[in-house]
Structures are given as C-alpha cells and as structure tokens.
C-alpha cells in the first residue's frame, strides 16, 4: 500500500532547498544572537605583559587590593571540605586521613594529567579547588589572572623546617603566594633485566632514546617542556627556555626523528610501567623511580632499577609548589593544610609513599639511603642542594615563545 504521490512529495525530507532555507534563516539570525550573547561579557581575561621570573631575575609578586590574604587567627570550620587538585598518587592517603581526623575536615582530591589542562580548568572559574600543585612555570600567569590567594604567613610557621633558600626563592620572593612541595630531578630510569648496558657509562646517555634497539620499549614524559628539554640537553644546549629559531628547528627535527626511530609512548605513568615490566627504559622524574619500588610485583627485588642524572648537575632540576587558589571556598583550612604538609614528620611520611623528596632540613639527601628512603642502586635519585645552582630550570615562557614550543609539541603528538 503505497502512499499517494502527493503525500510522498510533502513528506520528502531534507531537500536541498529546505536545507538552504534553514541555513539562511540561521545566518540571518546570527547578528541578533550575537547582540544577545555579547551581553555575557567576553572581555579578555588578562592584559599587559607577562612577568617572568628566573634565577637571574627574581621577582616579588604584587599583592592586589581586590585579592587580599585572609585574616589571621581563624580556625578551619569543622565538617567543611577542602579540595585538593594534584597529580594522581601524589599524596599519601594516610597523610590525608590523618589531617581529616585531626582537624575534622573532609578532603576531596581531584586529579589532572598535565598542568596545562589543570590551569585551563581552574581559569574557567567553575571549580572551587582550594589547593593546587603547579610548578613555578605557571606562577606568573596565575598571579596576573588573580587566580592565587596571597598566603598569610601567620598560619604557616613550619616554613622554618625547609631548606633556607626556599623562604626567599627567585620565583616568589618573600614566599607571597607559594611554598615548595617537592624537589625533583629529571633523568633516565631503566631496568637491568631489559637493558643490558649501563646507560650511565655512555658519552651521551640521552642518545639512548634514539637507539633503535630499544624501539617500542621506552617512554618519554607527557609534559611538553620536560620532554622537549631532553632533546636540547642531548645537544648540549643548556638554555631550557630558548627562543632561538635555530634551537627550535633542531628540537623539532630530532623530536620527529624520535617518533620514527623508537616510537616511544608518551605518558606520566612510568612509576607503574617500569616496575611492571611494560617498558625497559624511560625518561623519569627522580621521585617516580623511588616510587616504583612500591609497584614492583611481589617477589621482585628493587635491585633491577637504575636511575641516571648528570653527575655535574647540569640536568633538569625543578620543584613543585603548593598554592592556595583564590577561587577556593575554604582558605583557612587550606592554610592549615599547607602548614601541616610542611611539618617534618608529615613530610617524611608523605615522602615514604610518594617517593618525591621534600626540601626538609630533617631529610638529608646525602643520607637518603642510610635513612632507608631509597635502596643503594637508586642513590642517584637524591636531589642535592647544589643541583639547584648548577642545574637547568624549566621556566615560564613568554606567550609567543610558549606558543612556538606548544606548536612543536602538538606536531609531535599528532604523530608526524
């Protein structure tokens, strides 16, 4: 029983004409829409120039009138919630539980995979995190956009537990906005049962990432600045924040070469992949290699793990921060938490789980092995204070240069 032809014509779905007509209608209504929507306010979020801190140009950040510190002498409200925003597995659950019990505050931990994504979410203003763990390469942007709350030092007497240079670091003089969380180096980690050579003996250990015999068995860190600086260090370029086009071209060429030759995976889960045997070799943070021990399968001895960092200290050395976000709803608890994390015992307990070394006076890097924090084969993972003077730091980049670096990274991630 077919419907009569007239009916079929009237039921004819999207003819080209109707599609065109709809398109025109939509197009004609766009300006009205735009007038409506421009009422939402689409101003630029920040203006002016980005101030960049570096060891040779230390910066004291301004405290803005409309973003003051909290008052002194307050106590965290019982039963309230404190929201942390951090990498996964970057804080000891026991440390968290102890804080919750002591101060009767609930802690909610949200995680991110990389700091670009984290900053984008924070800047959207929709989420009220209290505590965040960036590195100092975001501090200028965050201060300019008023995303950070200045710290009230009265709440944080434990700052005295830290290494002296951190009370007045070049990236935040007078520690207005941040305290350090962990210090770490970035080197190369490997397993002796999958890698028969001693990478430390090579002339240029970084070359191992371009060595075809390890194809498919290695990983690089999924952080644009860290992974790309490794390429620069391989070529003995010690300016990790270079804007020179010659350097960038070299960087691009060798990064693409890396993809072709060894097909590395790009992740931040080395602390699990290396001990479980998924890979034999990776670019690694020092804290991750110590953390790996916890993830070894039962019965596997930690002797097979190794870590290399340049003996002269000229490798990547950085530290993560704890900052209090201005969008957070529980600043008093946030300050209390920061002070709690700087306590010597808490820091030690955290270190034993996370593997990342805190810059505490009570934890002497030279005796990490003796104190039982690391096995002897991983003594190279200790972060010595002198590294901070000799090492290379991943700084914040000016917007144009930042854009160029990110372009190269995007190319790399697109697979070439």
């Amino acid at each position, binding site marked *: 029983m077919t419907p009569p032809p007239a009916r079929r014509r009237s039921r004819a*779905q*999207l003819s080209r004409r109707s599609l065109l007509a709809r398109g025109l209608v939509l197009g004609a209504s766009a300006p009205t829409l735009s007038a409506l929507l421009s009422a*939402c306010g689409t101003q630029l979020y920040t203006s002016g120039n980005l101030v960049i801190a570096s060891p040779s140009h230390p910066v004291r950040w301004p405290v803005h009138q409309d973003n003051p510190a909290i008052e002194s002498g307050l106590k965290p409200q019982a039963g309230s919630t404190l929201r942390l925003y951090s990498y*996964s597995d970057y804080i000891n659950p026991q440390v968290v539980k102890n804080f919750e019990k002591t101060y009767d505050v609930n802690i909610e931990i949200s995680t991110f*995979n990389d700091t670009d994504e984290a900053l984008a*979410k924070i800047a959207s203003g*929709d*989420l009220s995190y209290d505590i965040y763990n960036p590195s100092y390469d975001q501090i200028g942007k965050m201060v300019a956009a008023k995303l950070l709350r200045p710290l009230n030092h009265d709440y944080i007497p434990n700052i005295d537990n830290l290494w002296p240079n951190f009370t007045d670091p070049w990236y935040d003089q007078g520690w207005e906005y941040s305290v350090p969380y962990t210090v770490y180096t970035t080197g190369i980690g490997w397993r002796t049962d999958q890698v028969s050579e001693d990478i430390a003996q090579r002339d240029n250990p970084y070359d191992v990432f371009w060595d075809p015999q390890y194809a498919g068995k290695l990983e690089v860190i999924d952080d644009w600045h860290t992974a790309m600086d490794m390429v620069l260090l391989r070529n003995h370029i010690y300016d990790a924040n270079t804007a020179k086009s010659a350097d960038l071209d070299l960087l691009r060429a060798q990064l693409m070469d890396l993809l072709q030759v060894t097909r590395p995976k790009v992740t931040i889960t080395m602390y699990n992949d290396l001990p479980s045997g998924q890979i034999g070799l990776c670019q690694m943070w020092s804290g991750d290699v110590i953390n790996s021990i916890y993830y070894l399968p*039962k019965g596997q001895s930690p002797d097979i793990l190794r870590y290399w960092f340049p003996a002269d200290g000229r490798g990547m050395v950085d530290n993560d921060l704890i900052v209090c976000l201005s969008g957070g709803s529980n600043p008093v608890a946030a300050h209390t938490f920061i002070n709690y994390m700087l306590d010597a015992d808490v820091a030690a307990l955290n270190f034993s789980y996370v593997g990342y070394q805190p810059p505490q006076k009570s934890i002497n890097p030279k005796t990490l092995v003796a104190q039982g924090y690391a096995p002897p084969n991983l003594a190279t993972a200790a972060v010595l204070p002198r590294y901070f003077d000799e090492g290379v730091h991943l700084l914040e980049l000016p917007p144009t240069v930042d854009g160029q670096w990110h372009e190269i990274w995007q190319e790399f991630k697109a697979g070439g």
Partner: protein
Amino acid sequence: MSGWWGNPWRRPRVLLGFTALYVVWSLLPVLIAVMFSFNSGRSRTVWQGFSMRWYYGDPLRSVWHDPSLHTALFHTFRLGILATLITVPLGVAMALGLDRWHGRLPQGANFAVLLSFVLPETLLAVALLFVVTTVSGSWQPLHLGISGQVAGLVTYQLSYPVVIVRSRLLTIGAQYEEAAVDLGASQFGAVRRVLMPMLVPAIFASAVLVFADVIDDFVIVRYLSGDSSTEPVSVKIYNSARGAPTPALNALASLVLVASIGVIIVGYLAHRYFTRGEDTHKRGIEAFASEL
C-alpha cells in the same frame, strides 16, 4: 561436491561455529576482568587467590573504603536516573509531536535528532564544554559538573526515545486514535487513553536503553566533569587504567555491570508484562530487541 556441503538444508555448522566464536571473543575478556576483581593480590594479570578484598576488605583501596571509588559509583547512578527521567518524557513527547506535525521546522528538528544519533560524541562534548566555559553569566545554568553532564547526556540520548517511539508509532498507525475521536473523545484524550498505553513497551524499552547507555557514557561526562566528586566510574577507569590500576577498578566495573544487568532484566520483564496481551509472533527477547 560432497553430500554434506551440497545439501541446501543442512545445519549451518560454519556459521554456527563462527557465531559461537564471536560470542566467546566478545564476552570472555569481560568475564576474565570480573574474575580478576576477586584476586587476592594486586595484580590484574596473575591470579593470586580468591578474596573479596577489593570490594570491601582492603581498608584503604577497596570500593567500600576508598571514597573516590564509591563516590564514582553513586555519581554514575545519579547521572543515570536524572538523565533518564528527563530524556524519556522529552523524547516521547517529541516523537509524538514530530510524527504528526508536518512542516519545515519539525523536518529540521527530525534531521537534527538523527544527526545527534550518529555524530561522534566528542563533537557534542567539546561544543558543550565551550559553552560552559566561555558563556558566563548568572543566567547561565550550566556548569562543569552534574548540570553540564546531565544536559549533555540528555541531548546525546534524546535520539533514542525519539527513534524507538517513532518506529512503534509507524507500526501502530493512526486508526486507533481516529476511532476514539470518532467515538467522541477529545484529541488529547485519545492520545492519553488509547495511544499511550500502546506505546508503553516502547517507552520502557527506550528508558532501559537510555539508562544503560548513560551509566556507561564516557566522553561527555569526562569533558563536562567538575572535580572528582562528579567523575563517574567510566572516567575513573580511564584515569586509573593509564596509571596504576588495582583490581578495585575491576570490582567497580563489575558492580556497574551487575547494576546494568539488573536494569535490563527489570526492563525485559516489564516489557513482557506490558506486551502480554499482544498477538505477535515474536515473543520475549526478540520483541524487546526489535523495539531497539
């Protein structure tokens, strides 16, 4: 050709074998994953003995004790219920309306719904993320978190009830309503008392499908998630699978699986109940499947 091969009415052993192989390939990995959720050790590949450790035993990392895991479970079901409660009425009404209303606007809406049925979810998720993060103002009700997630889920799932109910409408036809109107009922009354009861099986089928689909959704809920309390199980699995997963993850996924099975069984039984008077040659699961 040999007798067996040439016989046109022989049992189709090759096809049967292939189908059996497919079913095994399709479901065995999941069964293995469920099995490992009962592993007594940390490994997800090496069996180390039976234990309920990851469900409630382990004081720090089991689903019962780890707040991030059971929060994810509750959030998954919350999203499922909210999204289904909004999608099904909206979709059914839209199906009824679009079916009977002729004109450019309903044609365009029909195309938009079909488009949303087929488009990659990523497009919708990214578009909504842009809306939520850049269109600001106190009048804007969508935020990262449950409001954004539910809005995205409803939009993405709306096509299911629309398509299912419309195909049912095609089969039913307009004669019952016309008979009712002829006998003196109002248009509205005819719909309510004649058509709706006939649509109940289709409505139920679409509700079940939407719920099952929402609790497994990943892309939309991930892009529109706020902090960790609005991350459902699928996002937790994704985050942890790339990191350092424990069998607690398998346990969490198994719990969601059990819930899905429960909902499907309820839906199937309800469908059988609602179609018990119907004179169709298909019964049971086939009828249920043919709604979809």
